[in-house]
C-alpha cells in the first residue's frame, strides 16, 4: 500500500471509531507527512546532534579561553546575546533537523557566555538566574524545535535551583519538587487537552515532557543526597506531602483503567498502595521515581520508563546505604518488603480482567 492510501485508510479508521463527525484538510495532512518524512528524526540522530553539539561547545569555549576572549566581560556578554538570538532565529527560519548540532552548540555557548559575562560584571546572581529563565521562556514561545526546547526547559529548572541554592533557602527545594511533580503529572495526564489547545503547545509537548522528568530528577537527587546541600533532614518528608496524594490519585486512575469494580479489592489496593507510599515518606526520591514509572507506563512512554527504572535502582541503593540502622534491622526491612512484593505478584492474576493494580 502506498503512503497516500495508508493515510486515507488511517483517517477512515479514525472516523469510524468516532461518534461525532470531524473535518480535516487532506492535502495538508499529506503534505505534512511528506515534510516529516524529509525530516524524520531517529534516536541516533538526536544523540548524534547532542554529542556533536557538546563536543563543539567544549572546543569552542577552549578556543575563546585560549585567545583571552574572557578577559573582556563586555565582549563575552555581547557574544552570548548574539549567539542566543542567532540560534533561535536559525531555528525559526530553517526548521530543519540538520542545523540542530550547530544551533544547539551556539545556544549553549550563548547562555554560558551570558552568565559568565554578567558574573564578571558583578551582576547579582539572582538577576542572572531570572534573566536566563526569561530568555529561555521567550525562546520556548518563539521556536518549538525539539532539542532547543528541551534544553530551554532544563535551563529554566536549573536556574530555579540556582535561585534556591544561592540564596541559602535550601528547604524551598521541597517547593521545587512539589511544583515539578504537579506539572509533570498534569502534563502526562492531559495530553489530549494540551495538544488540541494550541499548535505550538502540541509541538512543545514531547520536549517539555522529557524536560520535566529530568528536572524532577534533579530535585530528587538534591533532596536525596544530604551531602550536596544542607537540607534539614528532619523535614525531608515535606516533599512527600505532595508526592503521596499525587501518587494515590494516580493509583485511582490506574485502578479505573484496569476495571477494578468490587469494593473489597478497591479498598485493599488503596490501603496497600498507601502503605507502600507511606513507608517511603522519608525518602521522597523513591516515591517520586515511582510516580515517573507509573506515568510513563500509563502513556506508554519508553524513554521515561527506562529513566525511571535506572533512577529507582539508584535511589533504592542510596536509601539502604544511608540508613542509619544496624544491618539486622536493614535486613528485616528488606526481607519484609521483598515478601510483600512477592505476595503482590502472587495476587496479580494473569489473564482475568479484574486485577490488582499495585
Amino acid at each position, binding site marked *: 500500500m502506498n503512503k497516500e492510501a495508508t493515510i486515507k485508510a488511517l483517517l477512515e479508521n479514525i472516523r469510524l471509531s468516532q461518534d461525532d463527525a470531524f473535518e480535516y484538510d487532506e492535502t495538508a495532512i499529506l503534505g505534512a507527512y511528506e515534510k516529516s518524512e524529509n525530516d*524524520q528524526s531517529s534516536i541516533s540522530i538526536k544523540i548524534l546532534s547532542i554529542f556533536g*553539539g557538546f563536543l*563543539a561547545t567544549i572546543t569552542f569555549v*577552549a578556543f575563546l579561553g585560549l585567545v583571552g576572549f574572557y578577559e573582556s566581560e563586555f565582549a563575552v556578554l555581547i557574544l552570548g546575546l548574539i549567539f542566543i538570538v542567532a540560534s533561535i532565529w536559525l531555528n525559526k527560519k530553517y526548521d530543519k533537523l540538520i542545523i540542530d548540532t550547530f544551533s544547539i552548540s551556539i545556544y549553549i555557548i550563548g547562555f554560558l557566555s551570558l552568565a559568565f559575562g554578567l558574573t564578571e560584571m558583578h551582576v547579582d546572581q539572582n538577576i542572572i538566574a531570572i534573566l536566563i529563565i526569561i530568555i529561555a521562556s521567550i525562546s520556548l514561545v518563539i521556536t518549538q524545535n525539539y532539542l532547543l526546547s528541551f534544553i530551554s526547559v532544563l535551563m529554566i529548572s536549573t536556574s530555579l535551583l540556582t535561585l534556591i541554592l544561592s540564596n541559602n533557602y535550601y528547604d524551598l527545594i521541597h517547593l521545587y519538587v512539589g511544583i515539578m511533580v504537579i506539572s509533570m503529572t498534569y502534563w502526562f495526564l492531559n495530553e489530549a487537552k494540551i495538544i488540541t489547545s494550541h499548535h505550538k503547545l502540541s509541538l512543545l509537548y514531547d520536549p517539555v515532557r522529557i524536560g520535566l522528568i529530568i528536572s524532577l530528577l534533579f530535585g530528587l537527587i538534591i533532596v536525596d543526597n544530604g551531602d550536596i546541600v544542607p537540607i534539614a533532614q528532619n523535614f525531608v518528608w515535606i516533599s512527600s506531602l505532595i508526592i503521596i496524594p499525587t501518587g494515590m490519585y494516580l493509583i485511582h486512575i490506574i485502578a479505573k483503567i484496569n476495571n477494578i469494580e468490587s469494593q473489597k479489592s478497591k479498598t485493599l489496593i488503596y490501603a496497600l498502595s498507601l502503605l507502600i507510599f507511606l513507608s517511603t515518606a522519608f525518602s521522597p526520591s523513591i516515591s517520586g521515581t515511582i510516580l515517573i514509572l507509573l506515568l510513563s507506563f500509563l502513556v506508554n512512554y519508553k524513554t521515561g520508563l527506562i529513566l525511571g527504572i535506572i533512577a529507582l535502582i539508584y535511589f533504592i541503593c542510596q536509601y539502604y546505604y544511608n540508613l542509619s540502622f544496624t544491618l539486622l534491622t536493614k535486613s528485616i526491612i528488606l526481607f519484609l518488603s*521483598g*515478601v510483600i512484593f512477592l505476595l503482590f*505478584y502472587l495476587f496479580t492474576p494473569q489473564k482475568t480482567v479484574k486485577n*490488582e*493494580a499495585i
Partner: protein
Amino acid sequence: MNIDKKDIRIINRYSDLSEKQVDKILKAHVYNSPESWQKFLRLLFISLGIAFTTAGILFFFAYNWADLHKFIKLGLVEGLIITLTSVVLFSNIKIDIKHIIITGTAILVGVLFAVFGQIYQTGANAYDFFLGWTIFITLWVVVLNFPPLWLVFITLVNTTLILYSEQVAHGWSAILLSTLLFSINLLFLVAFIITSKTVETIKTPNWFLNIIALATIVFSTIGISISIFEPYELATLVLVSLSVIIYAIGIIYGLRAKKGFYLSIIPFSVIVICSAFFIKISVDPGMFFIISLFIVISVTLVIRNLINLQKKWTNE
C-alpha cells in the same frame, strides 16, 4: 491498523478533532491496555520481590558475619544458589521469570566467590575472583541465551581483562589493552549478529546488539585517540588496521541491513579521532576554533546523510 503518536499529532494539526476525540484515540491506540498493565505489574513485583528478599537475606548474614564458621558462610550462599536453581529446574513457572531468577543466581555466584576470597584472604579485587565468576556462569549464559545475563557476562569478561592488565600484566600498554578489549567485544558482536541471522530459533534484540557495538567502538576510539599521543608500538598498527577494516565493514553492513545506529556511531568515532589528531598537530587557539567548526560541519553532514538514507529506506 497501527496508529501511532506521530499520526495523531499530524492529523490533529489539520483537522478539528476535539479534545475528547483525541483522548479517545490516544487511549485506544497509544496508551497501555489493562493486559499490558498486568504483565508490567507482575514483572515489576517479581523483580522487586526477588531483589529485596535476596538483599534482606544477604544483609542478615552480613550482620553476624564475623561470628559465623567459614563452613556455614560458604554453605549458606551455596545453599541459596542450589535452592534457586532447583526452583528453576523443577517448577513450572514461566520461562521469562526463570530467566530473571537465574540472572539473580549468577550474581550470587559472584557473592560466593567474594565470600571465598574473604575467608581465604585472596583479596576481593584480584582478577582471579572475576575470572572464576566468569567461568562458572558461562554454561548458564550460553544455555539460557538471555540478553541481560549476556550483558552481565560480557561486563565480567571486560572487567577480568582490565584487572588482569592492572594486577598481573604490568607490561601492557593502554593501547594493547584497548586493542584486546576492542577485539573481544567485536568477536561477541559478530558472533551475535551471525547467529541471529543463521539460526532461526535465536532472536537477539536490537538494543542488546547496539550496546555491544557501542562498547566495541568506545574501546577502539579511546585506543586510537591515546595512540596518537603515544610513541609507536606494534599494537597501534594492529588496532588501527583492524579498526579501518571493521569500520568499513560496519558501514557496508549498516547500509545493507539499514542500521542507522552503525552509520552514526562509526562516523562519530572517526570525528573524535580526527579531533584528537588535530590537537596533536597544534594546540594553538586557532586550532580549537577549527576543530569546533570541523565537528559541527562533519556531524551535520553525517546527519544529513542519515536523513536522506532514512527517507530512501522508508520509500523502498
